[in-house]
Protein backbone atom coordinates (compact mmCIF):
# COMPACT_ATOMS: atom_id res chain seq x y z
CA UNK A 1 0.00 0.00 0.00
CA UNK A 2 1.34 3.33 -0.97
CA UNK A 3 -0.08 5.80 1.47
CA UNK A 4 1.34 9.02 2.79
CA UNK A 5 0.52 9.24 6.47
CA UNK A 6 0.18 12.80 7.64
CA UNK A 7 -1.15 13.22 11.16
CA UNK A 8 -0.32 16.91 11.01
CA UNK A 9 -3.18 17.33 8.53
CA UNK A 10 -5.60 18.23 11.33
CA UNK A 11 -3.79 21.48 11.96
CA UNK A 12 -3.62 22.56 8.35
CA UNK A 13 -6.23 25.00 7.07
CA UNK A 14 -9.20 23.47 5.29
CA UNK A 15 -10.13 24.69 1.83
CA UNK A 16 -13.49 26.02 3.03
CA UNK A 17 -11.73 28.80 4.89
CA UNK A 18 -13.38 27.82 8.17
CA UNK A 19 -10.14 27.13 10.05
CA UNK A 20 -8.25 23.85 10.26
CA UNK A 21 -9.39 20.37 9.30
CA UNK A 22 -9.83 19.71 13.00
CA UNK A 23 -12.25 22.62 13.20
CA UNK A 24 -14.16 21.03 10.36
CA UNK A 25 -14.47 17.74 12.20
CA UNK A 26 -15.43 19.47 15.44
CA UNK A 27 -18.18 21.43 13.71
CA UNK A 28 -19.40 18.07 12.39
CA UNK A 29 -19.30 16.69 15.90
CA UNK A 30 -21.33 19.63 17.17
CA UNK A 31 -23.98 18.99 14.53
CA UNK A 32 -24.00 15.27 15.37
CA UNK A 33 -24.57 16.11 19.02
CA UNK A 34 -27.33 18.60 18.21
CA UNK A 35 -29.10 16.17 15.90
CA UNK A 36 -28.76 13.29 18.33
CA UNK A 37 -29.98 15.36 21.27
CA UNK A 38 -33.12 16.51 19.48
CA UNK A 39 -33.72 13.02 18.08
CA UNK A 40 -33.38 11.51 21.56
CA UNK A 41 -35.82 13.98 23.07
CA UNK A 42 -38.34 13.12 20.33
CA UNK A 43 -37.69 9.40 20.78
CA UNK A 44 -38.12 9.56 24.55
CA UNK A 45 -41.31 11.61 24.51
CA UNK A 46 -43.18 9.91 21.67
CA UNK A 47 -41.74 6.52 22.61
CA UNK A 48 -43.01 6.92 26.17
CA UNK A 49 -46.47 7.92 25.03
CA UNK A 50 -46.73 5.05 22.55
CA UNK A 51 -45.20 2.60 25.03
CA UNK A 52 -47.81 3.51 27.63
CA UNK A 53 -50.59 3.23 25.03
CA UNK A 54 -49.52 -0.32 24.30
CA UNK A 55 -50.21 -1.25 27.92
CA UNK A 56 -53.60 0.45 28.30
CA UNK A 57 -56.78 -1.64 28.54
CA UNK A 58 -58.32 0.34 25.65
CA UNK A 59 -58.33 -1.64 22.39
CA UNK A 60 -57.98 1.51 20.29
CA UNK A 61 -54.89 2.65 22.18
CA UNK A 62 -53.13 -0.71 21.96
CA UNK A 63 -53.97 -0.95 18.27
CA UNK A 64 -52.54 2.51 17.58
CA UNK A 65 -49.42 1.65 19.58
CA UNK A 66 -49.01 -1.58 17.67
CA UNK A 67 -49.42 0.09 14.26
CA UNK A 68 -47.04 2.93 15.18
CA UNK A 69 -44.29 0.62 16.38
CA UNK A 70 -44.56 -1.75 13.43
CA UNK A 71 -44.53 1.16 10.96
CA UNK A 72 -41.40 2.77 12.33
CA UNK A 73 -39.36 -0.27 13.21
CA UNK A 74 -40.00 -2.36 10.13
CA UNK A 75 -38.54 0.06 7.61
CA UNK A 76 -34.82 0.73 7.26
CA UNK A 77 -33.81 4.06 8.77
CA UNK A 78 -32.29 5.10 5.46
CA UNK A 79 -35.58 4.54 3.64
CA UNK A 80 -37.41 6.53 6.31
CA UNK A 81 -35.09 9.49 5.94
CA UNK A 82 -35.55 9.41 2.15
CA UNK A 83 -39.32 9.25 2.66
CA UNK A 84 -39.31 12.32 4.88
CA UNK A 85 -36.79 14.22 2.78
CA UNK A 86 -37.58 13.39 -0.84
CA UNK A 87 -41.06 11.87 -0.91
CA UNK A 88 -43.06 13.78 1.68
CA UNK A 89 -42.65 17.23 0.01
CA UNK A 90 -43.91 15.75 -3.26
CA UNK A 91 -47.08 14.14 -1.93
CA UNK A 92 -48.11 17.12 0.17
CA UNK A 93 -50.22 19.85 -1.42
CA UNK A 94 -48.01 22.04 -3.64
CA UNK A 95 -47.75 24.99 -1.29
CA UNK A 96 -46.91 22.89 1.76
CA UNK A 97 -44.41 20.86 -0.24
CA UNK A 98 -42.70 23.98 -1.48
CA UNK A 99 -42.52 25.38 2.04
CA UNK A 100 -40.91 22.16 3.25
CA UNK A 101 -38.34 22.19 0.47
CA UNK A 102 -37.35 25.76 1.21
CA UNK A 103 -37.09 25.24 4.93
CA UNK A 104 -33.66 26.35 6.14
CA UNK A 105 -31.63 23.53 7.71
CA UNK A 106 -34.01 20.98 6.18
CA UNK A 107 -31.44 18.14 6.44
CA UNK A 108 -31.00 18.83 10.15
CA UNK A 109 -34.69 18.85 10.97
CA UNK A 110 -35.38 15.85 8.77
CA UNK A 111 -32.55 13.87 10.35
CA UNK A 112 -33.52 14.74 13.91
CA UNK A 113 -37.20 13.98 13.38
CA UNK A 114 -36.55 10.91 11.21
CA UNK A 115 -34.07 9.34 13.61
CA UNK A 116 -36.28 10.43 16.53
CA UNK A 117 -39.35 8.61 15.21
CA UNK A 118 -37.32 5.57 14.23
CA UNK A 119 -35.87 5.33 17.72
CA UNK A 120 -39.18 6.12 19.40
CA UNK A 121 -40.58 2.79 18.21
CA UNK A 122 -37.73 1.06 20.00
CA UNK A 123 -38.18 3.11 23.17
CA UNK A 124 -41.90 2.28 23.06
CA UNK A 125 -41.27 -1.45 22.95
CA UNK A 126 -38.78 -1.26 25.82
CA UNK A 127 -41.07 0.83 27.98
CA UNK A 128 -43.94 -1.54 27.29
CA UNK A 129 -41.74 -4.43 28.37
CA UNK A 130 -40.73 -2.50 31.48
CA UNK A 131 -44.32 -1.79 32.46
CA UNK A 132 -45.40 -5.36 31.75
CA UNK A 133 -42.59 -6.68 33.92
CA UNK A 134 -44.10 -5.03 37.00
CA UNK A 135 -46.36 -7.22 39.14
CA UNK A 136 -50.00 -6.90 38.12
CA UNK A 137 -50.80 -6.06 41.72
CA UNK A 138 -48.94 -2.74 41.50
CA UNK A 139 -51.50 -1.30 39.16
CA UNK A 140 -54.28 -2.82 41.26
CA UNK A 141 -52.87 -1.30 44.43
CA UNK A 142 -52.68 2.11 42.79
CA UNK A 143 -56.23 1.75 41.50
CA UNK A 144 -57.53 0.49 44.83
CA UNK A 145 -56.11 3.57 46.56
CA UNK A 146 -58.24 5.73 44.29
CA UNK A 147 -55.51 6.90 41.93
CA UNK A 148 -56.75 7.47 38.41
CA UNK A 149 -55.11 5.66 35.47
CA UNK A 150 -52.98 8.72 34.69
CA UNK A 151 -51.90 9.10 38.33
CA UNK A 152 -51.20 5.38 38.57
CA UNK A 153 -48.83 5.57 35.63
CA UNK A 154 -47.27 8.84 36.72
CA UNK A 155 -46.58 7.99 40.36
CA UNK A 156 -46.46 4.20 40.51
CA UNK A 157 -45.82 2.36 37.24
CA UNK A 158 -43.56 4.65 35.22
CA UNK A 159 -41.01 5.47 37.96
CA UNK A 160 -40.37 1.75 38.33
CA UNK A 161 -40.61 0.87 34.63
CA UNK A 162 -38.07 3.52 33.63
CA UNK A 163 -35.67 2.36 36.33
CA UNK A 164 -35.93 -1.19 35.04
CA UNK A 165 -35.28 -0.26 31.42
CA UNK A 166 -32.47 2.20 32.11
CA UNK A 167 -29.68 -0.17 30.94
CA UNK A 168 -31.33 -0.97 27.57
CA UNK A 169 -32.28 2.71 27.22
CA UNK A 170 -28.58 3.53 27.42
CA UNK A 171 -28.02 1.35 24.36
CA UNK A 172 -30.84 3.09 22.55
CA UNK A 173 -29.32 6.47 23.36
CA UNK A 174 -26.00 5.30 21.89
CA UNK A 175 -27.82 3.97 18.82
CA UNK A 176 -29.47 7.34 18.38
CA UNK A 177 -26.10 9.07 18.32
CA UNK A 178 -24.65 6.56 15.87
CA UNK A 179 -27.72 6.53 13.65
CA UNK A 180 -27.40 10.25 12.92
CA UNK A 181 -24.53 9.25 10.61
CA UNK A 182 -27.16 8.07 8.13
CA UNK A 183 -28.06 11.73 7.64
CA UNK A 184 -24.96 12.11 5.47
CA UNK A 185 -27.17 10.77 2.65
CA UNK A 186 -29.46 13.77 2.81
CA UNK A 187 -26.56 16.19 2.90
CA UNK A 188 -26.21 16.83 6.61
CA UNK A 189 -22.57 17.67 7.35
CA UNK A 190 -22.40 15.94 10.70
CA UNK A 191 -19.29 14.13 11.93
CA UNK A 192 -19.30 11.37 9.32
CA UNK A 193 -20.12 13.90 6.63
CA UNK A 194 -17.23 16.15 7.64
CA UNK A 195 -14.83 13.22 7.83
CA UNK A 196 -15.84 12.34 4.32
CA UNK A 197 -15.32 15.85 2.98
CA UNK A 198 -11.97 15.99 4.74
CA UNK A 199 -11.06 12.82 2.88
CA UNK A 200 -12.16 14.29 -0.41
CA UNK A 201 -10.23 17.53 0.08
CA UNK A 202 -7.05 16.08 1.52
CA UNK A 203 -7.00 12.39 0.48
CA UNK A 204 -6.04 11.55 4.10
CA UNK A 205 -8.82 8.98 4.46
CA UNK A 206 -7.29 7.04 7.35
CA UNK A 207 -6.57 10.09 9.45
CA UNK A 208 -10.04 11.52 8.82
CA UNK A 209 -11.94 8.39 9.80
CA UNK A 210 -9.62 7.54 12.68
CA UNK A 211 -10.41 10.94 14.12
CA UNK A 212 -14.14 10.48 13.53
CA UNK A 213 -14.03 7.04 15.14
CA UNK A 214 -12.26 8.38 18.21
CA UNK A 215 -14.71 11.25 18.52
CA UNK A 216 -17.70 8.86 18.33
CA UNK A 217 -16.03 6.63 20.92
CA UNK A 218 -15.41 9.54 23.26
CA UNK A 219 -18.97 10.81 23.01
CA UNK A 220 -20.40 7.36 23.65
CA UNK A 221 -18.02 6.80 26.55
CA UNK A 222 -19.32 10.00 28.13
CA UNK A 223 -22.93 8.89 27.61
CA UNK A 224 -22.30 5.44 29.06
CA UNK A 225 -20.59 6.93 32.10
CA UNK A 226 -23.34 9.48 32.62
CA UNK A 227 -26.01 6.80 32.38
CA UNK A 228 -24.16 4.63 34.91
CA UNK A 229 -24.23 7.57 37.31
CA UNK A 230 -27.91 8.09 36.63
CA UNK A 231 -28.57 4.40 37.27
CA UNK A 232 -26.77 4.58 40.58
CA UNK A 233 -28.48 7.82 41.49
CA UNK A 234 -32.00 6.45 41.02
CA UNK A 235 -31.25 2.98 42.42
CA UNK A 236 -33.62 1.89 45.18
CA UNK A 237 -32.07 0.74 48.45
CA UNK A 238 -32.59 -2.97 48.96
CA UNK A 239 -34.11 -3.47 45.52
CA UNK A 240 -32.36 -5.80 43.00
CA UNK A 241 -29.32 -3.72 42.01
CA UNK A 242 -29.94 -1.10 44.68
CA UNK A 243 -27.27 0.54 46.76
Amino acid sequence: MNYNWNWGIFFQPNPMGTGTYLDMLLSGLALTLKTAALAWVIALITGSIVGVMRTLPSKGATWFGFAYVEFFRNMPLLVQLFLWFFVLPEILPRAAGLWLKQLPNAPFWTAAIGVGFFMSARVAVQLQAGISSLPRGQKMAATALGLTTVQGYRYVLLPMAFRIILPPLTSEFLNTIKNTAVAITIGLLELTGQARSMQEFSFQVFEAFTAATILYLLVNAVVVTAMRFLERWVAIPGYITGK
Partner: protein
Amino acid sequence: MIEISHVDKWYSPSFQVLTDCTTSVAKGEVVVVCGPSGSGKSTLIKCVNALEPFQKGDISIDGIKVNDPKTDLPKLRSRVGMVFQHFELFPHLKIIDNLCLAQEKVLGRSHDKAVTKGMQLLDRVGLKEQAQKFPAQLSGGQQQRVAIARALAMDPIAMLFDEPTSALDPEMISEVLDVMVDLAHEGMTMMVVTHEMGFARKVANRVIFMDRGEIVEDAPKDDFFGKPRSDRAQKFLSKILSH
Protein backbone atom coordinates in the same frame (compact mmCIF):
# COMPACT_ATOMS: atom_id res chain seq x y z
CA MET B 1 -72.37 -1.32 53.98
CA ILE B 2 -71.39 -3.79 51.24
CA GLU B 3 -74.25 -5.37 49.32
CA ILE B 4 -73.52 -8.10 46.80
CA SER B 5 -76.51 -9.43 44.95
CA HIS B 6 -76.71 -12.11 42.28
CA VAL B 7 -73.25 -11.47 40.87
CA ASP B 8 -72.15 -13.52 37.88
CA LYS B 9 -68.75 -13.25 36.29
CA TRP B 10 -67.42 -15.15 33.34
CA TYR B 11 -64.45 -14.88 30.99
CA SER B 12 -66.31 -16.76 28.29
CA PRO B 13 -69.68 -18.53 28.31
CA SER B 14 -67.95 -21.80 29.14
CA PHE B 15 -65.68 -20.31 31.79
CA GLN B 16 -67.76 -18.96 34.63
CA VAL B 17 -65.86 -17.87 37.74
CA LEU B 18 -68.68 -16.50 39.88
CA THR B 19 -72.22 -17.82 39.91
CA ASP B 20 -75.11 -16.00 41.54
CA CYS B 21 -73.15 -14.70 44.53
CA THR B 22 -75.30 -12.89 47.06
CA THR B 23 -74.18 -11.69 50.47
CA SER B 24 -73.63 -8.56 52.46
CA VAL B 25 -71.37 -7.02 55.06
CA ALA B 26 -73.09 -4.77 57.57
CA LYS B 27 -71.43 -1.76 59.15
CA GLY B 28 -68.95 -2.87 61.78
CA GLU B 29 -69.23 -6.48 60.76
CA VAL B 30 -66.27 -8.76 60.08
CA VAL B 31 -66.93 -11.35 57.41
CA VAL B 32 -64.40 -14.03 56.58
CA VAL B 33 -64.47 -15.62 53.14
CA CYS B 34 -62.84 -19.01 52.82
CA GLY B 35 -62.78 -21.89 50.40
CA PRO B 36 -60.40 -24.00 48.34
CA SER B 37 -58.11 -22.28 45.87
CA GLY B 38 -59.79 -21.44 42.61
CA SER B 39 -63.16 -21.11 44.33
CA GLY B 40 -63.50 -17.47 43.32
CA LYS B 41 -63.08 -15.82 46.70
CA SER B 42 -60.29 -13.48 45.58
CA THR B 43 -62.21 -12.64 42.45
CA LEU B 44 -65.31 -11.84 44.47
CA ILE B 45 -63.49 -9.46 46.80
CA LYS B 46 -61.86 -7.74 43.84
CA CYS B 47 -65.29 -7.23 42.32
CA VAL B 48 -66.33 -5.29 45.42
CA ASN B 49 -64.15 -2.30 44.57
CA ALA B 50 -64.36 -2.93 40.85
CA LEU B 51 -60.79 -4.09 40.37
CA GLU B 52 -62.41 -6.91 38.44
CA PRO B 53 -65.44 -6.35 36.23
CA PHE B 54 -68.46 -8.64 36.47
CA GLN B 55 -71.14 -9.35 33.92
CA LYS B 56 -74.37 -9.68 35.91
CA GLY B 57 -75.77 -8.59 39.24
CA ASP B 58 -75.15 -5.61 41.48
CA ILE B 59 -72.64 -4.60 44.10
CA SER B 60 -73.04 -1.46 46.14
CA ILE B 61 -70.93 0.11 48.85
CA ASP B 62 -72.54 2.51 51.27
CA GLY B 63 -75.46 2.79 48.86
CA ILE B 64 -73.30 3.61 45.84
CA LYS B 65 -73.50 1.17 42.97
CA VAL B 66 -70.08 -0.10 41.89
CA ASN B 67 -71.30 -1.28 38.50
CA ASP B 68 -73.05 1.95 37.57
CA PRO B 69 -71.08 3.60 34.73
CA LYS B 70 -71.89 6.99 36.29
CA THR B 71 -70.16 6.13 39.56
CA ASP B 72 -66.89 7.95 40.21
CA LEU B 73 -64.89 4.78 40.79
CA PRO B 74 -61.59 6.35 41.91
CA LYS B 75 -63.51 8.29 44.56
CA LEU B 76 -65.42 5.23 45.70
CA ARG B 77 -62.25 3.12 45.81
CA SER B 78 -60.48 5.74 47.87
CA ARG B 79 -63.09 5.14 50.59
CA VAL B 80 -62.51 1.39 50.65
CA GLY B 81 -59.14 0.14 51.87
CA MET B 82 -57.64 -2.91 50.26
CA VAL B 83 -54.78 -5.14 51.36
CA PHE B 84 -53.23 -7.60 48.91
CA GLN B 85 -51.59 -10.97 49.26
CA HIS B 86 -48.26 -9.64 47.99
CA PHE B 87 -48.41 -6.32 49.86
CA GLU B 88 -47.91 -4.25 46.71
CA LEU B 89 -46.06 -1.44 48.38
CA PHE B 90 -44.55 0.94 45.84
CA PRO B 91 -40.86 -0.07 45.86
CA HIS B 92 -39.45 3.27 44.73
CA LEU B 93 -41.09 5.23 47.56
CA LYS B 94 -40.00 5.39 51.16
CA ILE B 95 -42.41 3.82 53.65
CA ILE B 96 -43.78 7.19 54.72
CA ASP B 97 -44.17 8.27 51.07
CA ASN B 98 -46.09 5.07 50.37
CA LEU B 99 -48.55 6.25 53.00
CA CYS B 100 -48.65 9.84 51.77
CA LEU B 101 -49.03 9.36 48.00
CA ALA B 102 -52.75 8.69 47.78
CA GLN B 103 -53.58 10.98 50.71
CA GLU B 104 -52.08 13.86 48.76
CA LYS B 105 -52.99 12.94 45.19
CA VAL B 106 -56.47 11.55 45.81
CA LEU B 107 -57.71 13.24 48.98
CA GLY B 108 -55.80 16.46 48.38
CA ARG B 109 -54.30 16.59 51.86
CA SER B 110 -51.27 18.78 52.39
CA HIS B 111 -47.93 17.02 52.68
CA ASP B 112 -47.59 17.92 56.36
CA LYS B 113 -51.02 16.61 57.23
CA ALA B 114 -50.39 13.44 55.25
CA VAL B 115 -47.07 12.87 57.02
CA THR B 116 -48.65 13.42 60.44
CA LYS B 117 -51.42 10.98 59.64
CA GLY B 118 -48.94 8.52 58.14
CA MET B 119 -46.63 8.60 61.15
CA GLN B 120 -49.56 8.14 63.47
CA LEU B 121 -50.61 4.99 61.60
CA LEU B 122 -47.06 3.67 61.36
CA ASP B 123 -46.83 4.08 65.10
CA ARG B 124 -50.04 2.15 65.45
CA VAL B 125 -48.72 -0.83 63.48
CA GLY B 126 -45.41 -0.56 65.37
CA LEU B 127 -43.25 0.61 62.48
CA LYS B 128 -42.57 4.25 63.21
CA GLU B 129 -38.81 3.68 63.11
CA GLN B 130 -39.02 2.31 59.57
CA ALA B 131 -40.61 5.41 58.04
CA GLN B 132 -37.53 6.49 56.12
CA LYS B 133 -36.70 3.03 54.79
CA PHE B 134 -37.69 1.51 51.48
CA PRO B 135 -40.09 -1.44 51.20
CA ALA B 136 -37.40 -3.88 50.07
CA GLN B 137 -35.55 -3.25 53.34
CA LEU B 138 -38.46 -4.57 55.42
CA SER B 139 -39.56 -8.12 56.17
CA GLY B 140 -42.75 -9.50 54.66
CA GLY B 141 -44.71 -9.08 57.85
CA GLN B 142 -43.54 -5.50 58.23
CA GLN B 143 -44.42 -4.75 54.62
CA GLN B 144 -47.92 -6.10 55.10
CA ARG B 145 -48.40 -3.97 58.21
CA VAL B 146 -47.28 -0.95 56.19
CA ALA B 147 -49.80 -1.91 53.52
CA ILE B 148 -52.55 -1.98 56.13
CA ALA B 149 -51.43 1.41 57.43
CA ARG B 150 -51.41 2.75 53.89
CA ALA B 151 -55.00 1.66 53.40
CA LEU B 152 -56.04 3.10 56.77
CA ALA B 153 -54.43 6.45 55.94
CA MET B 154 -57.32 7.06 53.54
CA ASP B 155 -59.83 6.88 56.42
CA PRO B 156 -61.71 4.04 54.76
CA ILE B 157 -65.30 3.15 55.61
CA ALA B 158 -64.52 -0.52 55.04
CA MET B 159 -61.47 -2.70 54.53
CA LEU B 160 -60.98 -5.57 52.09
CA PHE B 161 -58.26 -8.13 52.76
CA ASP B 162 -57.26 -10.50 49.97
CA GLU B 163 -55.34 -13.36 51.60
CA PRO B 164 -53.21 -10.95 53.64
CA THR B 165 -51.10 -13.65 55.30
CA SER B 166 -50.76 -16.24 52.52
CA ALA B 167 -47.40 -14.95 51.29
CA LEU B 168 -45.87 -14.68 54.75
CA ASP B 169 -43.50 -16.91 56.65
CA PRO B 170 -45.30 -18.59 59.56
CA GLU B 171 -43.59 -16.51 62.24
CA MET B 172 -44.76 -13.29 60.60
CA ILE B 173 -48.39 -14.21 60.26
CA SER B 174 -49.31 -13.36 63.83
CA GLU B 175 -47.90 -9.82 63.73
CA VAL B 176 -50.21 -9.08 60.80
CA LEU B 177 -53.20 -10.87 62.31
CA ASP B 178 -52.73 -8.92 65.56
CA VAL B 179 -53.13 -5.67 63.67
CA MET B 180 -56.24 -7.02 61.95
CA VAL B 181 -57.75 -8.23 65.21
CA ASP B 182 -57.25 -4.79 66.75
CA LEU B 183 -58.90 -3.26 63.75
CA ALA B 184 -61.87 -5.58 64.06
CA HIS B 185 -62.25 -4.80 67.74
CA GLU B 186 -62.35 -1.11 66.92
CA GLY B 187 -65.41 -1.73 64.81
CA MET B 188 -63.97 -1.54 61.32
CA THR B 189 -66.13 -3.09 58.65
CA MET B 190 -64.03 -5.88 57.18
CA MET B 191 -64.28 -8.46 54.44
CA VAL B 192 -61.40 -10.88 54.73
CA VAL B 193 -60.41 -13.65 52.36
CA THR B 194 -58.23 -15.94 54.42
CA HIS B 195 -57.47 -19.47 55.48
CA GLU B 196 -56.67 -18.35 59.02
CA MET B 197 -59.50 -20.06 60.84
CA GLY B 198 -58.07 -18.95 64.18
CA PHE B 199 -58.61 -15.38 63.09
CA ALA B 200 -62.12 -16.24 61.93
CA ARG B 201 -62.98 -17.84 65.25
CA LYS B 202 -61.65 -14.88 67.15
CA VAL B 203 -63.21 -11.93 65.41
CA ALA B 204 -65.50 -12.93 62.55
CA ASN B 205 -69.21 -12.33 62.79
CA ARG B 206 -69.96 -14.46 59.79
CA VAL B 207 -68.10 -16.95 57.66
CA ILE B 208 -68.74 -17.41 53.96
CA PHE B 209 -67.61 -20.62 52.32
CA MET B 210 -67.13 -20.58 48.57
CA ASP B 211 -66.55 -23.41 46.15
CA ARG B 212 -66.42 -23.36 42.35
CA GLY B 213 -67.57 -19.78 42.14
CA GLU B 214 -70.59 -20.23 44.35
CA ILE B 215 -71.33 -19.16 47.88
CA VAL B 216 -72.07 -22.53 49.41
CA GLU B 217 -72.45 -21.42 52.97
CA ASP B 218 -73.01 -18.06 54.61
CA ALA B 219 -73.47 -18.52 58.33
CA PRO B 220 -72.78 -16.89 61.71
CA LYS B 221 -69.36 -17.94 62.96
CA ASP B 222 -70.60 -20.29 65.68
CA ASP B 223 -72.94 -22.11 63.33
CA PHE B 224 -70.21 -22.45 60.74
CA PHE B 225 -67.62 -23.90 63.09
CA GLY B 226 -70.25 -25.81 65.06
CA LYS B 227 -71.74 -27.73 62.21
CA PRO B 228 -71.50 -26.59 58.62
CA ARG B 229 -74.62 -27.50 56.74
CA SER B 230 -73.00 -28.45 53.46
CA ASP B 231 -70.83 -31.48 52.80
CA ARG B 232 -68.30 -29.44 50.91
CA ALA B 233 -67.75 -27.04 53.77
CA GLN B 234 -67.46 -29.92 56.20
CA LYS B 235 -64.83 -31.58 54.06
CA PHE B 236 -62.93 -28.32 53.68
CA LEU B 237 -62.98 -27.65 57.40
CA SER B 238 -61.93 -31.16 58.31
CA LYS B 239 -58.95 -30.80 56.01
CA ILE B 240 -57.69 -27.46 57.25
CA LEU B 241 -58.55 -27.91 60.92
CA SER B 242 -57.07 -31.39 61.29
CA HIS B 243 -53.51 -30.06 61.63
